[in-house]
C-alpha cells in the first residue's frame, strides 16, 4: 500500500509537472493572441472603451466573451447584431428603447464616450473566439415573404437609419422586428404632420408607448417622414 512519502512525492510531481506545462501553454497563448484578436487594431479609443467598460462595472449585468453576469444581453457580437447607429441612440437613454422592461442604469455618457464604447465592442466582436456565440441550431427557418418585392423597392430609397435603427423593432417587406407595427401602408394612415410630431416626441402623442424618443435632428426627421409617406 502507498506510503505517506510516496503520496507526498505524487503531490509534488503532479503539481510541479502540470504547473510547468501550464506555463508553457501560457507562453504560446500570449504569442498567439495578438494575431487572433487583431491587437494592432487596439486604438486609444478602444482602450478608453475598455476603461469605461470596467469603471462602470458593465460586467455586473452583461456578459462579454460570455463572461460577466446574466441579467443583461451578451455583447460580444453586439455591433453585428444592432449596428453602431442603434447602439448610439440606446446608450444616450437606455430606458427609452425598452420602456417598462428591465432597466439599465442611465450613465449620461458623452458622445465621445459612446464612440469609445462602440469601438471597444467592435474590436471585441472581431476576436477569433473559436465559434462563440454559437449559431442558433434549432432556429425555425425564416418565413418566405410573398410580397417582398414592394418592400425591396421601398428599401432602395430608405434613409440609412431605417435598416440600422428602425428595423430593430419595425418590419418592412417582411424583414425586421415585430415589436412595433410594420411600415407598409403607413403613408395612407397618417399625415406628414402627424408622423413628424410622433417622431419628435412619441410619448406626447401616446403616453406609455414603447416607441422611444430617438432625439433625431430636424433634417434627419424630415427625410424619414418623407420616406415613410411614400409607403402606401
Amino acid at each position: 500500500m502507498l506510503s505517506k512519502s510516496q503520496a507526498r512525492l505524487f503531490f509534488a510531481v503532479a503539481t510541479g509537472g502540470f504547473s510547468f506545462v501550464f506555463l508553457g501553454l501560457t507562453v504560446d497563448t500570449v504569442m498567439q493572441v495578438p494575431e487572433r484578436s487583431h491587437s494592432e487594431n487596439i486604438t486609444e479609443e478602444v482602450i478608453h472603451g475598455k476603461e469605461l467598460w470596467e469603471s462602470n462595472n458593465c460586467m455586473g449585468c452583461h456578459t462579454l466573451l460570455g463572461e460577466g453576469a446574466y441579467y443583461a444581453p451578451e455583447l460580444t457580437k453586439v455591433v453585428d447584431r444592432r449596428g453602431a447607429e442603434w447602439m448610439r441612440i440606446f446608450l444616450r437613454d437606455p430606458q427609452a428603447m425598452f420602456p417598462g422592461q428591465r432597466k439599465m442604469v442611465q450613465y449620461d455618457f458623452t458622445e465621445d464616450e459612446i464612440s469609445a464604447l462602440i469601438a471597444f465592442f467592435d474590436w471585441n466582436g472581431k476576436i477569433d473566439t473559436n465559434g462563440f456565440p454559437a449559431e442558433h441550431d434549432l432556429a425555425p427557418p425564416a418565413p418566405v415573404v410573398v410580397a417582398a418585392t414592394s418592400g425591396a423597392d421601398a428599401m432602395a430609397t430608405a434613409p440609412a437609419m431605417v435598416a440600422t435603427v428602425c428595423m430593430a423593432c419595425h418590419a418592412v417587406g417582411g424583414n425586421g422586428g415585430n415589436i412595433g407595427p410594420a411600415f407598409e401602408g403607413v403613408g395612407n394612415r397618417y399625415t406628414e404632420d402627424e408622423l413628424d410630431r410622433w417622431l419628435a416626441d412619441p410619448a406626447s402623442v401616446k403616453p406609455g408607448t414603447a416607441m422611444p424618443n430617438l432625439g433625431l435632428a430636424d433634417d434627419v426627421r424630415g427625410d424619414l417622414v418623407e420616406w415613410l409617406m411614400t409607403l402606401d
Partner: protein
Amino acid sequence: MKFRTQRISWLFFATCMLLLCLQIVYGFIMGFAHMGYDVLHDYIPFNTARATHTNVLVVWLLCGFMGAAYYIVPEESGRELWSPKLAVVQWASLLLVAVTAVIGFHFNWWEGRKFLEIPRPLDYLVVINVLSFVLNIGMTTFTGKRYTTTGMVLLVGLVSAALLYLPGMIWFDSQVMDSYFRWWVVHLWVEGVWELIMGAIMSYLLIKLTGVDREVIEKWLYIIVGLTFVSGILGTGHHYYWIGAPEYWLIVGGVFSALEPLAFLGMALYGVTMARRGGRKHPNKIAMYWTVGCGIMSFVGAGFLGFAHTLPSVNIYTHGTLVTAMHGHLAFWGAYAMIVLAIISYAMPQMTGRKFFDTWVPEWAFWISNIGMLSMTCAFAVAGVTQVYLERRVGMDFLEVQAAVAVHFTALVLAASLFTLGILLFIYDFIRYGFPSDEAVEGAAEPEAAAAK
C-alpha cells in the same frame, strides 16, 4: 482549545456570520430583480447588488479560512500565535477594506472585472493585509514545536492564494489578455489553492473528530490535493475556450476539467470513509455533519454540476447563461461555505467551553440550509436550461427569454427563504455560544492531545 490565542479566530468567525447575512440580502435583491421587481434600481442597481453579493462571499470565505488558520496553526505547531496583536489589527483592517469596498460599489467606484471588482487602491491594502496574515501564520509555523502535514498544506495553500492575487492586478489593453490572467486568480483560487485550504481544514477536522491515525488521514490528504492539481491547473483551460485563446485549449481544458470531479469525489470518499473508520464517537456530531456534508456537496456542486457544462460542445451554448449560476451556487456552498461552517461548528464549543451539541438548533440549521440550497440549485437549473434552449439554440430575443424564465425566480426566492431560515438558525446557535472563555483553554482535553503529552 489548547492555546489562549486561538480565540482570535472568533473575531473572524463572527465577521463571517455578519457578511453571510449581507450576502443573502443582496442575493434577494437580485432574485426579485429577475422576477421583475427591480424596485431598488435607482439606489442599488443590479451590478451593485451583484458585485456586493460575490465580493462579500469571497471576503467571508477568506475570513473563514483566516479564522480557521488562526485556530488550527497554533495547535498544529504547538505554540501560541506569533503575534496576537498583529492578528487583531489584520482583522480590523480587513473589515475596514471590505466595508469601504461595499460602500464604494454603491457609488459606482469599482474595477468592473468579474469577482475582482474592488477598486485598485483597495487591492494594495488587501495585499498588505494578506502579507501580514501570512507573516503571522508563517512565523507561528516555523518557530513552532512541530511541523505537521496538515499545517504545512494549509500554509502552502494560504501563501499561494496570496501570490495568485497578483496577476489580477496587471493592466492589459486587450480584453483577451485581461480575461486570461484574471482566471489565474479566480480559477486557480477556487479550483486550485483554495482546495488545499479546504483539504487541510477537512483533514484537521477528521483527525480531531474521527480518531483515525493522523498518518493515514494526511497520506490521503496528499493524494487528494495532488489530484486537485492534476486536474485543476490545466482545467483552467475551460475558461479559455471562447475568449480568443488558441484552439488547443478546447482539448486541454475539456480533458482536464473532465477529471476535476475525481478530486472532489476523492474529497467525498475521504470524508465518508474516515468517518466510518473512526472508532471514536466524538460528541460534537454536528461538526461531523458539516465536515462529511462538505465533502459530499462539493462533489455534487463543484464536481458533478461543473462537469455537466464543462465539455466544449455543451459549453458553447451554456457559457454565460444562468446554467453557470446553477453550478456556482452549489459549488461555493458545498466546497467552501460548508467547510467554514464546519470549522466554526467544531471550534465554537472548544473556544467557549459550552457544549451545546445535542440541541435541535444546529442540526436543523444543517438540514434546512442544505435542502434550501439544493432547491435553489434546481430553480437555477430549470431557468438556465430553458434560457440555453430558447435564447442560444432557438434564437429568441434575450428579454423575451428572461420574461419566460422569470417564474423560476419565484421558485428561487422561495428556496432561498428556506436556505435563509437555516442560516439564521446557525447564527442563532453561534450567538448562543457567546464569547471565547479563558476557562476553555486546555479544558477540553482531546484524546490526541492527551496522547501527545
